């Protein structure tokens, strides 16, 4: 083994130092001949004869050298080197062809590598946590309850942690991100900091060790204990210039002093894993006892105990969860908890699997189209070079050697294409990784890694073989005579050859058709999503976070709200203004909400998503009041409690009746329904709206506050005036960002936009390649048939007639491809049905549009050569041979 290796190494070295060894050998052989001459002279021969005899005995000098080279080096590498030299010379001679081929390959391979990297990052690569496959996501089954419906209470957390046997440990965090926003003061301008509240053991259970400092201690999650905070890596670099001395220093958050316990490692991006498209700056340990009365605020993550599988854990959870208490002080308030256990990775990226696979198929098709296209180009080229090959083979080049030569050219093209493609892919992935606003998990860790490089190599080799083999075998498989005859100038092309090329174009058009139909369906779905009645008007409205310093006093808050809104409304350009504690499609919470006097089964108590809003909020958001009235400032803290409901809530609680004036149970208190609004898409754009209620901020306590303004101007233009008004009222108002409501909607539909954009880009590429293919084949056949066309023109055919012939040939090919493609699309339609929104896979409009688009592109692609054909001068062609 080691001997073999050493020999290989020596042979490689010999191969690399070929020239030097050749010189050495020449010296040695010269010495050999001289020694032989000396001997011969000593034996009595004349000097001339002595030299002649010596040379005869030595044998062929060149032969000896060649034998020596074979023995010491790697003969096949030598041949490869020759092939490469030939190939690059041949390609340099045909620069136009080479550039087009490399560009096409670059696009195809680049798209493939980029998508591979996305798939690898999101689906394949393990989460950046220790033993990630042992981590389990534990939440309630998804329902209309939004985040509250999938989260649990603190008492449930303690009980589950104590009672379960399946998990080594269970941790939790508060998924209501916006509600743990902090205001950092004492370091320059007051500024908002996005935080997440996590259980003290969060980092230990996930297996994340801080880059600096330490993870939280139990002391830091005790009431009255030391307040600690852990910084995210980007926040630490941005805010504290990456200064390690910050660990152990105090920072002031919401007016209280916290000690910086440490800095999370750069590889741990909380948002990328748990809240795609969200930025998290700090981690705050949950002070558990302060959270007892918060209700359902925690989602769980467990680390399986050794030897326990997911089904076993699920079975145990099915037994334990129904008995967990919502509030241990009131065991009779049965929460009816259920749990669905998912591999954490499945939770993070499972829903994207289908979309990503579709995306992967799309780029796979692109690569196929690229290969078919190149096959066609190469066929045309080999046809033109067939005489060169016939000559070489007549001179004794073996068939294998010719195929190898062609394959080498393909490989050379593919490598150049792969290098270009890698460049494209790197640009695409870098660009995507920086798009913080796309709500796709793990996207920030997107990069070209070793696996992607491997994939590049694989696609390059596969495509080289795919597009290189067909022309290679066609070339070498024909007998010499046929080639020489077929390629004689002025002869019509062999039929077999023609049919093969036509078949390639048809398959290319068919593939492009499938891609276009898929992209069309996704695009139509996306447009449908954009047309969805959100229940509010996202355009011309913007929101800004407001620091409400009410000291927990409701009457003080009412006065403050009135002042802020009064002054903001007085600003020029403001049409309406209002406040809410949360915004739709941003974050949400739910409360129990029922008709008074109605009895409900255990665990079936209805709930509704809840927003605490001020008068004017409905107008500012562009929501529609269907019945009753908006909130008023007269709905005071000590007046009658009131609530506005949406139509879904009205239908659910008072089916077929007028809800206005009825009394509802909001959590434990009563409130009178004063109005009904149209349903708002609160949790997602694509899902139906569930029950929603709006409580007055004068009566209910908000968690945070967003000021929403509707303007006649661009929202950005108002940012500074609104900000200075807020600062004038409250100097501690942090410099918050002005968010257009449209941006929030865009964020919610960003995954769909991402996929539509990519698939459409691929379809456009496919279309361009297919049209190039059609153009290439038709143009080539016109060139080949110059003489025939010339004769027909000479015999009296009109130019129009010739043009029509060429066009009809083009359409024949295109239509064959379209028909096959359409049938294939219909068959494959079910595969993407799950990704469509309000669109059927057989959507006639999409199909018709695709057919028309492809046909018109084919017409254009065929028209150029057709025009050329009709302008052939009979005299010139006939004379030219």
């Amino acid at each position, binding site marked *: 083994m080691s001997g073999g290796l050493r020999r290989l190494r020596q042979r490689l070295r010999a191969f690399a130092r070929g020239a030097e060894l050749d010189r050495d050998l020449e010296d040695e052989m010269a*010495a*050999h001949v001289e020694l032989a001459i000396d001997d011969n002279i000593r034996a009595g021969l004349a000097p001339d004869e002595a030299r002649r005899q010596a040379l005869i*005995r030595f044998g062929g000098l060149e*032969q000896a050298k060649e034998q*020596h080279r*074979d023995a010491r080096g790697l003969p096949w590498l030598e041949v490869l080197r020759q092939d490469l030299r030939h190939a690059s010379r041949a390609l340099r001679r045909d620069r136009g062809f080479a550039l087009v081929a490399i560009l096409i390959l670059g696009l195809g391979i680049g798209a493939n590598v980029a998508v591979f990297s996305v798939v690898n990052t999101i689906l394949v690569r393990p989460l950046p946590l220790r033993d990630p496959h042992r981590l389990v996501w534990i939440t309630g089954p998804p329902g209309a309850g939004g985040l509250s419906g999938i989260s649990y209470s603190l008492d449930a957390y303690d009980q589950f942690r104590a009672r379960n046997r399946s998990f080594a440990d269970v941790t939790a965090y508060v998924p209501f991100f916006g509600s743990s926003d902090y205001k950092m003061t004492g370091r320059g301008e007051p500024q908002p900091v996005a935080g997440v509240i996590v259980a003290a053991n969060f980092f230990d259970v996930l297996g994340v060790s801080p880059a600096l400092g330490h993870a939280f201690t139990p002391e830091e999650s005790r009431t009255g204990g030391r307040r600690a905070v852990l910084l995210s890596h980007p926040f630490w670099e941005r805010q504290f210039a990456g200064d390690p001395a910050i660990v152990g220093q105090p920072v002031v958050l919401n007016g209280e002093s916290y000690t910086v316990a440490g800095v999370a490692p750069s590889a741990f991006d909380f948002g990328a894993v748990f809240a795609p498209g969200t930025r998290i700056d700090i981690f705050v340990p949950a002070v558990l006892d302060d959270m007892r009365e918060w209700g359902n605020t925690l989602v769980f993550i467990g680390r399986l105990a050794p030897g326990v599988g997911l089904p076993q854990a699920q079975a145990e959870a099915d037994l334990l969860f129904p008995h967990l208490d919502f509030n241990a002080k009131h065991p009779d308030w049965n929460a009816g908890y259920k749990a669905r256990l998912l591999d954490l990775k499945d939770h993070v990226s499972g829903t994207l699997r289908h979309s990503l696979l579709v995306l992967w198929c799309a780029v796979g098709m692109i690569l196929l189209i690229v290969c078919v296209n190149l096959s066609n180009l190469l066929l045309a080229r080999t046809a033109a070079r067939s005489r060169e090959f016939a000559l070489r083979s007549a001179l004794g080049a073996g068939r294998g050697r010719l195929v190898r030569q062609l394959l080498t050219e393909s490989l050379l093209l593919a490598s150049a294409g792969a290098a270009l493609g890698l460049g494209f892919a790197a640009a695409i992935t870098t660009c995507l990784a920086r798009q913080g606003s796309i709500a796709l998990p793990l996207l920030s860790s997107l990069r070209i890694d070793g696996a992607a490089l491997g994939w590049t190599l694989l696609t390059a080799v596969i495509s080289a073989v795919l597009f290189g083999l067909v022309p290679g075998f066609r070339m070498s498989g024909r007998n010499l005579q046929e080639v020489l005859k077929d390629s004689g100038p002025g002869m019509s092309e062999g039929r077999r050859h023609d049919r093969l090329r036509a078949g390639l174009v048809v398959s290319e058009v068919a593939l492009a058709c499938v891609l276009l139909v898929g992209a069309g369906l996704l695009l139509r779905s996306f447009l449908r999503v954009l047309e969805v009645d959100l229940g509010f008007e996202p355009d011309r409205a913007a929101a800004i976070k407001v620091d409400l310093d009410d000291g927990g006093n409701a009457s003080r808050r009412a006065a403050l709200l009135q002042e802020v809104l009064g002054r903001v409304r007085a600003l020029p350009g403001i049409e309406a203004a209002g406040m809410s504690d949360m915004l739709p499609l941003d974050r949400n919470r739910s409360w129990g909400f029922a008709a008074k006097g109605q009895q409900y089964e255990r665990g079936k108590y209805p709930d509704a998503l809840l927003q605490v809003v001020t008068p004017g909020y409905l107008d500012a958001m562009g929501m529609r009041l269907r019945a009753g009235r908006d909130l008023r400032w007269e709905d005071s803290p000590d007046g009658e409690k009131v609530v506005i409901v949406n139509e879904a809530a009205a239908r659910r609680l008072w089916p077929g009746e007028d809800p206005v004036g009825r009394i509802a149970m909001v959590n434990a208190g009563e409130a009178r329904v004063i109005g009904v609004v149209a349903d708002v898409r609160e949790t997602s754009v694509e899902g139906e709206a569930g029950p929603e209620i709006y409580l007055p901020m004068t009566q209910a306590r908000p968690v945070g506050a967003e000021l929403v303004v509707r303007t006649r101007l661009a929202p950005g233009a108002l940012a500074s005036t609104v900000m200075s008004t807020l600062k004038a009222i409250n100097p501690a108002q942090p410099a918050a960002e002005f968010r257009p409501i449209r941006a929030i909607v865009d964020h919610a539909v960003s995954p769909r936009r991402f996929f539509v954009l990519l698939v459409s880009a691929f379809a456009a590429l496919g279309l361009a390649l297919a049209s190039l293919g059609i153009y290439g084949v038709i143009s080539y056949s016109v060139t080949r048939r110059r003489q025939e066309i010339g004769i027909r023109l000479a015999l009296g055919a009109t130019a129009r007639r010739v043009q029509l012939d060429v066009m009809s040939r083009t359409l024949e090919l295109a239509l064959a491809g379209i028909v096959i493609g359409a049938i294939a699309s219909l068959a494959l339609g079910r595969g993407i049905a799950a990704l469509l929104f309000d669109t059927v896979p057989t959507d006639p409009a999409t199909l018709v549009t695709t057919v028309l688009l492809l046909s018109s592109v084919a017409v254009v692609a065929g028209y150029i050569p057709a025009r050329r054909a009709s302008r052939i001068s009979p005299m010139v062609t006939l004379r030219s041979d």
Partner: protein
Amino acid sequence: MGESRLDLLQGTLDLMVLQTLAAMGPRHGYGIARRIEQLSGEQILLNQGTIYASLVRLQQRGWISSEWGTSENNRKARFYSITKKGRKQLAEDAAYWERLSTVIGRVLATHGTTDR
């Protein structure tokens, strides 16, 4: 002339080179070729050039080593000598060769009797 000489079987040249170097000590390519021709009683007439392919092969296997030196009549030449590993290999190959030639001799002898 070709008919009366022996063609070399694959690998036999390597064996003869090893044996020559083992018996005679360091030699240059020409010396080895001449020695083989002389020992075979001029039965083997080498294309002397082929010896160099054999020499490079043996050297790559680590069975012989070489260095430039000066010949008895003051010419610069590359001298080859057998290594320890080469001697071991030679012993193995020689034993193998002897067994093979014995067996072949026996087989040919049988053939002679049945033919009659």
